[in-house]
């Protein structure tokens, strides 16, 4: 059997089944009790009738005789219109009445009515018999008074009770089923509430679930919390590893580069110098690629748990430009900053934004010709636009949207080494902040314009 997938359904079906069983039990019990009560009433009246007849037994000149009381039979007609039969036997001979009335269950004790149910003249009848001793002779006579009544009135009462009980039982069942539905919903409300709380969380909200949980859910909440704690520590280990890896790769590369430069200065042969220059370029590229891969990993990781720290974008831009200005100066490139006076407050992940801007600027410097300008601009209208415009070769007439995918590079950059990760990083940072990366041609017609468009709040 397939188990119902929903707790609510299972709960409901089980409660409904219980209600059905209870309703059925109710109907049977009520019917049984009421039928017995009705039967008891009939038995009582039959016994009263038989007793009244027995009381009117007398002896006359040595013979048992009877003055049948009118009320003895008329009382049987008061509650229903059932047929009535009777018989009086004296020492096993019928004195009067219906001689063929069944006599299977005869009383053995004086004045104690016995009851039985028989079929007589095509109908089920209830019989009661009572034993009397009449002292008509010295020995006395054993007189049995039997009164019988058909049970169609009883059957009608029983039918009526059954219908009523069934109706009530059905109502009870419907009511109970409705209530079980409500109960199932109500019982699951804490679970739903908790589900809602957890579902509403950001993808990287790994704080423990607090709030009141029903006792039954406490182990689940505890397990969830412990799971999240493990996840959190695992994530923080990953972050540490990334930082560590970045550090471990970059630092030796920097050392190698320094050594290579020193060696370059010491060498005289042009072919050796060229070899070292190639080496330095390769080291630079490696360092840059490693940086970008780490940046990308870092951005991906941080995007999952975006920190929304208040920061000043103007400062961030200035710092980033300052850090890159030595590289720019090597190619006589001027970094021109255009930004509003005063701080530009923004809520976001400073490290990610810095990485994005760093990569955009780095790209711009890489593809800019010597002795050119790169402008970094912050514009605020409905959104915040942080754009970097260079005077380089631009994007040509290629598909701008494809450029932001990972490891994709422009068609016109074959001569420049690069990993193709720079714009991907910028794009992911923009998306993580709910914004987008816009690539366009610069207004002067030559060069590229890369803009981080962020929602400004």
């Amino acid at each position, binding site marked *: 059997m397939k188990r119902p997938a929903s707790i609510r359904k299972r709960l409901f079906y089980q409660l409904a089944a219980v209600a059905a069983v209870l309703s059925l039990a109710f109907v049977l019990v009520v019917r049984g009790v009421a039928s017995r009560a009705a039967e008891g009433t009939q038995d009582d009246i039959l016994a009263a009738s038989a007793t009244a007849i027995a009381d009117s037994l007398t002896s006359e000149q040595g013979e048992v005789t009877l003055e*049948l009381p009118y009320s003895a*039979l008329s009382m049987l007609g008061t509650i229903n219109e059932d*047929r009535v039969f009777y018989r009086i036997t004296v020492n096993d001979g019928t004195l009067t009445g219906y001689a063929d009335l069944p006599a299977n269950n005869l009383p053995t004790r004086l004045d104690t009515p016995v009851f039985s149910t028989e079929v007589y*003249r*095509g109908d089920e009848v209830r019989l009661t018999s009572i034993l009397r001793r009449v002292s008509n002779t010295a020995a006395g006579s054993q007189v049995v008074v039997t009164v019988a009544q058909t049970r169609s009135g009883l059957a009608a009462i029983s039918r009526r009770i059954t219908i009523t009980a069934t109706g009530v039982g059905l109502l009870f069942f419907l009511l109970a089923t409705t209530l079980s539905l409500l109960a199932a919903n109500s019982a699951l409300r804490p679970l739903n509430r908790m589900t809602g709380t957890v579902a509403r969380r950001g993808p990287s909200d790994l704080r423990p679930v607090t709030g009141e949980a029903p006792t039954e859910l406490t182990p689940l909440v505890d397990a969830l919390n412990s799971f999240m704690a493990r996840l959190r520590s695992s994530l923080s280990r990953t972050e540490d590893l990334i930082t560590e890896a970045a550090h471990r790769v970059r630092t030796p590369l920097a050392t190698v580069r320094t050594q290579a430069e020193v060696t370059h200065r010491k060498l005289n042969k042009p072919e050796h110098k060229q070899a070292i220059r190639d080496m330095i370029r390769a080291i630079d590229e490696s360092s840059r690629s490693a940086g970008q891969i780490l940046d990308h990993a870092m951005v991906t990781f941080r995007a999952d748990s975006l920190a929304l720290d208040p920061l000043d974008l103007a400062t961030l831009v200035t710092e980033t430009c300052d850090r890159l200005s030595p590289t720019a100066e090597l190619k006589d490139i001027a970094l021109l900053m255009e930004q509003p006076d005063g701080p530009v407050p923004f809520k976001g992940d400073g490290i990610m934004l810095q990485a994005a801007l760093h990569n955009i600027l780095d790209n711009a410097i890489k593809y800019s010709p010597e002795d050119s300008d790169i402008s970094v601009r912050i514009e605020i209208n409905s959104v915040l636009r942080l754009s970097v415009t260079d005077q380089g070769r631009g994007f040509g007439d290629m598909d701008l949207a494809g450029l932001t995918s990972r490891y994709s590079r422009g068609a016109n950059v074959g001569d420049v080494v690069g990993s193709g990760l720079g714009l991907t990083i910028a794009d992911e940072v923009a998306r993580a902040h709910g914004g987008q990366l816009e690539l366009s041609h610069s207004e002067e017609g030559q060069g590229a314009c890369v803009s981080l468009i962020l929602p400004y709040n």
Partner: protein
Amino acid sequence: MRVTHFTLQLIAAMSLWVGAAQAFEIEDRQVYTASPETSVLHIISTADRAVFEPILLAFQADNPGISIDYTITGTTDLMKAIYEEDAVFDLAISSAMDLQTKLANDGYAQSYIPQSAPELPDWAIWRDQLFAFTQEPAVMVVSDKYFDKGTAPQTRDALIELLRQNPEKFRGRVGTYDVRRSGFGYLMATQDSRTSETYWRLMEVMGRLDAQLYCCSGDMISDVASGKLAMAYNVLGSYAASVVAATEGVQIVELTDFMNVMLRTVLIPSSAENVPDARAMVDFLTSLRRYPELVEASGLPPLDTAALQDNPALRPIRFGPGLLVFLDQLKEEKFLRSWENSILQELP
């Protein structure tokens, strides 16, 4: 001798033995042929033809095609015919409520719910087998020769007093039913005895006055009309009324202490062959009240709950197993013995 349960059995056994087809006594028989005839309704009844003919003809007018075979017999013979001799009739109409009750109780009637059932009072139907369609009080009929208008006694006590004080005047001039021969008389006598002890005193007084005993209301009333009787006690009111309307010199006295009201009943015997027509007739009879001209013509007073409520002296006999009591062999023997002791006295 009124036929008892046991003698009935004896008669049945004998008739079986002799092989006689019908041992019950037929007083009269009339066939009302319909043309074209589609079915025949066999009715056994205790009601005189004069009384019932208008009803039968009206029924035929309403239900063309039904021929009616109307057999008239006494109340005990009717009982005997159905109870003992398995005579086949589609309908049994009788004024003896007790015998009809016994037929229904012992399983000789079949159930039917008449169309008019919702309008009928509860006491008019028993077991959906016995249907009352008239209510007829037992009245006293007195002769104008003996009583000027309004001078007849109004209660049984007054009657007893009058008879006691004028024995010579009324000797041999008082009539009542021979309860040994008339089922209706027996029913009225037993109900009287249940209702009041004055019944036995009255019988005692009437016995001393050499009461004349009759089998039927008709003879009794005509003897009162002719002046042979001064009074007749316990006469069927409906007959009395029809005779009084047609005859001079008779008054009806409705006693004010109590009047037992007999319900004329119809039942469909379990052996009925033409049940649909029998049911149609039951429907017709139980809605008799809707045909005033028939009530007028037959003189049968229809059921009228209001009349019973207006006159507290009217005591309708109730259906129920109580009616079986006086049909009990011992009870009947004792009652008849008491009755004979009271009414059949050696004249001094």
